């Protein structure tokens, strides 16, 4: 039997040994490897290159977007759809991030968040420091929804809470905003998990517990890095002057 096979094997070996066939085989393997590498690299590159600008209505996201990209002041209206553009992070580094400005209106914000959350490398949550006292519950609720989202928890993008509109005298400081948000999120944890479950069984609060049980909520308990920064998209010198965005830009450099 071995004898029967041997001539066949010899014939095969002779065939395969031919230089043409061998080179073809090698070429195929090379192409396959290149393809796999290319796919892998592109996958890495295109996933999570976005920085999302979130926040309530009238927080100043679109103006912030315009200032970061063009440096000029633009009049803005309530956004209905998202806007995205590539932002060059700094002059020496050549890394780019895609800045995406999402609408803040209640009926749109969750839809757009769903669409873009998987691609988020970092999230900038813009807060209106002047109206914060009035809106603290709404701000906390939106922030809570962002934080308990399963995709966000899994990817843990860096989170920056930008306290905008600091050019107005009545603006609250970042420290105060942080304290108030922590207190509010603490309460929300309890009420949201006790809310009636939705129709098909998926709970609104999610099984995810924000922070550690038993202890008061603190931003340091989150799996992602959270920073607070003060900024002013309009700028203290009015519309003609520069915007006060240093902290934000530095953070973007760090994150990119």
């Amino acid at each position, binding site marked *: 039997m071995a004898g029967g096979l041997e001539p066949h094997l010899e014939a095969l070996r002779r065939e395969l040994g031919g230089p043409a066939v061998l080179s073809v085989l090698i070429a195929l393997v090379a192409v396959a490897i290149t393809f796999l590498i290319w796919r892998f690299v592109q996958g890495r590159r295109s996933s999570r290159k976005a920085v999302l600008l979130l926040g309530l209505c009238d927080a100043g996201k*679109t103006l912030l*977007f*315009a200032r970061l*990209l*063009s440096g*000029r002041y*633009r*009049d*803005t*209206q*309530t*956004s*209905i*759809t*998202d*806007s*995205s*553009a*590539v932002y060059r992070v700094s002059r020496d580094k050549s890394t780019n991030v895609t800045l995406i*400005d999402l*609408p803040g*209106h*209640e*009926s*749109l914000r*969750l*839809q757009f968040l769903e669409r873009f959350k998987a691609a988020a490398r970092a999230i900038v949550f813009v807060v209106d420091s002047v109206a914060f006292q009035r809106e603290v*519950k*709404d701000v906390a*609720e939106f922030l809570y929804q962002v934080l308990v989202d399963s995709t966000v928890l899994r990817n843990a993008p860096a989170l920056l809470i930008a306290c905008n509109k600091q050019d107005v005298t009545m603006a609250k400081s970042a420290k105060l905003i942080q304290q108030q948000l922590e207190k509010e999120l603490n*309460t*929300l944890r*309890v*009420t*949201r998990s*006790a*809310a*009636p*479950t*939705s*129709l*098909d069984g*998926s709970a*609104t609060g999610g099984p995810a517990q924000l922070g550690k049980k038993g202890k008061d909520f603190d931003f340091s308990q989150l799996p992602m890095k959270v920073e607070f920064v003060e900024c002013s998209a309009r700028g203290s010198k009015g519309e003609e002057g520069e915007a006060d965005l240093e902290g934000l830009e530095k953070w973007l450099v760090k994150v990119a």
Partner: protein
Amino acid sequence: MLDFFTIFSKGGLVLWCFQGVRGPAATAPVNALIRSVLLQERGGNNSFTHEALTLKYKLDNQFELVFVVGFQKILTLTYVDKLIDDVHKEFRDKYRNEFQQKGALGLLNGTFDFKDDFMRLLREAEESSKVRAPTVMKTFEQSLKSQKTVKCMIETRGEKPKEKVKNKKNKGSKKDGTEGVAAPSKASAGDKQLSAAGDKEELTKDEILQKNREEFFRRHMKAGEKSRSPKPDAQKEKGKKPRVWDLGNSNAKVLDYSNSATNGSAEACPVEEFDPDMALGDKNREPGRLYDLEYESDDEAEEEKVVQNPSKPSVKKGGLGGMFGMLKGLVGSKSLTREDMDPVLEKMKDHLIAKNVAAEIAVQLCESVAKKLEGKVMGTFTTVTSTVKQALQEALVQILQPQRRVDVLRDVMDAQRHRRPYVVTFCGVNGVGKSTNLAKAGQDPGSQDRGDGISFWLIENGFSVLIAACDTFRAGAVEQLRTHTRRLNALHPPESHGGRTMVQLYEKGYGKDAAGIAMEAISYARNQGFDVVLVDTAGRMQDNAPLMTALAKLIAVNAPDLVLFVGEALVGNEAVDQLVKFNKALADHSMAQTPRLIDGIVLTKFDTIDDKVGAAISMTYITSKPIVFVGTGQTYCDLRSLNAKAVVAALMKA
């Protein structure tokens, strides 16, 4: 005359703005427009009033732009629509390069210096709408009448009764031959005018009869005109005696009109040539006269005009053009037109109505989606159906997302801190499940109705509840609440909650004033330290004016924190009527500047509909308030909250 004209992108950047007559800033009214119209999917008609301004808008879905013009409400400017269209075209063509750049950089960096073009277009539009100087009347010498001879103007009897009737615009003519014609035509003209002026949809039986009768006469008039006119003449000659006039006892020949003017020869006067033209002219001008053939031709003429007007490249019909269009559609550079979307939208509208969405809301929704998609460029390999379905799905999810925060527990905690009770009022029509969902208590295995109500949920979270029995009308209402209260107390005895009774019933029997009981209940709760007061009112029909007044009074006087409208999920078109009338009653009878309207909706009997969940859409669309609770009634955990995505998925399921 315009207050302002803004052009901004859908992403929020204002590209160009024109501030007209010392008007206020444009941002606030435009924001109001965006929030109430575009985001609530009410974009069917393109105008919107905000305080003293009327705003007209146009969407460009291809480049994601919005054009808004605002002017004073009291003015009626006729050129505004045309102006918007012209500006749209010009702006788009001029800055096409900036728009076609990927991302928002084109919009950010481009300068849009549109002022000169805009002023030119505005001037053109204003001039085209100016009233022309009144035409000077012709002198008698210039008119045609002076050129006619007297003889020509004498109309002979048999030939021209029709034209004569038309010329005189149905002034009662005494001729027999024409009376028969005149009467139905006069009546039909009057009828047609009425029907044109009034509702076009209502073609009552009488009007249909009238129309048919008129057609019948017309058909026979044409045929029997010639034959009819000599007949009555013959009859007249028999019975009529020659009248003797004092004046003019001229010979009978002149007075004899029976001779048909067959000598329409050389002396044929210009009147003959002109009359048909004038008649035709009259025919077109009379609003009531719509003969069958003319009706159709008018329609065709309109259709032709409509097709020619839009400057967008229309889809070419015909063999080669059709194939080309299909290829273009595959590649993805085809823009959506109204004609493409209409069949799909019709189907979607019927589908929605089959799923129990109220009919007018389905229509408005489809209109709004059409407006949002018109002119949009489709992506590669997407069909019209899929694009429309996608847009409709997004619109439905948008509607169901609450406009305001909905967190009862959070608000109760707030009220707790301020040491006052949180008052919730339940209102609705008869038999929707107010008392049941309010007071149902837990898991008694032997009982028929299992499951949790709202008070049970609140007690589980540690809040003490006072139930105010303000349903003083229905027999057994107070007893029902008392039974539930007793069971709730058995499930959550005071010992397990630090010695205080978790739930108590406040009732004053039957036949008393509900508003008074509510007020006493609230002060009792404040004294005793209850956290929540649930006020149960009697069911009432929305058309019952005195009961609606009573409800409005209850709400206005007691100022509850939350007014919940309880509606059942089975309701169809009625939902619209109920909610509108309830809101109206609350608004009318409230003294305050901003009246308390319905704050939220409780949808009950949700388990009785499997996937015909349209009632949820109807209710949220009308009030733009969220659905706070959903009562299902069959599973353990009866009180649910609404999951927007699941509801929309159930709606869109085939």
